[in-house]
């Protein structure tokens, strides 16, 4: 097995293509992707419908806040944002792993995606728990 330089650079040795499941998280990723998909499929359409209702003028700001500023509204929105960001992370990861073959690009790229999604999550949480107050 060639371990030096080009192999390592292109990720075919170091990242485990020559080995069985070195990351040990394949099944976990697969399952979490589907679990979060179910949560997002249940919670995102209502959020999008609220957005469209505001767009159409069916809800003004007070009516919108009345609908979402209880503990249940905030809690559901928090669940949605956690599931959505986890789902987005795993989805982008699958795409990046398929198309970005250079490990020296892929690893920092996925790092940036993860840090970016976390930052959005924190901001999003703060908006969710502050609205209507």
């Amino acid at each position, binding site marked *: *097995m*060639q371990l030096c330089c080009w192999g390592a650079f292109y990720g075919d040795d170091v990242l485990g293509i*020559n*080995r*069985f499941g*070195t990351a040990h998280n394949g099944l976990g990723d697969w399952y979490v992707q*589907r679990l979060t*998909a*179910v949560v997002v*499929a249940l919670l*995102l*359409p209502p959020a*999008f419908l609220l*957005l*469209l209702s*505001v*767009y*159409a003028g069916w809800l003004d*700001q007070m009516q*919108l*806040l009345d609908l*979402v500023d209880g503990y249940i509204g905030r809690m559901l929105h928090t669940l949605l944002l956690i599931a*959505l*960001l986890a789902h*987005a992370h795993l*989805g*982008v990861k699958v*795409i990046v792993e*398929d198309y970005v073959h250079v490990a020296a690009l892929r690893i920092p790229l996925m790092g940036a995606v993860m840090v970016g*999604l976390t930052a*959005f999550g924190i*901001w*999003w949480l703060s*908006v*969710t728990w*502050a*609205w*209507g107050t």
Partner: protein
Amino acid sequence: MPAIKRPQKDRPLSPHLSIYRWQLPMLASITHRASGMALALFVPVYLFLLTGLTGSSEEFSRMLDWMHAWPGRLILWLTGVALFYHMTNGIRFILLDAGWFEARDSMRLTARVSIGAGVLAAVLLGGFLW
């Protein structure tokens, strides 16, 4: 850790997509990725909207104006279509994982349903927004 034996380094790899004739399930799959990517890119826009809509009443009306101007409309339209398609096809993928519709014909039929749902969403949402 067991290593897989690889006698030959330069053998052809499997995903040479360009050699396959285009099929509807392939289109459904690549569109799922594209729409997922579009939805991930909508996250910052959603936060921008959410911050404004739940902020002061001036910010609320500014967001309403932003949504009604054509870039806002276009973004809402693209996102809504991507969301509806990604959800329909995502349900299809979960059903496939559960072992349903795996035969070639039903793969094609369900791919047709997903894509049809996306087109329908595009028309309906377009009618709603314009």
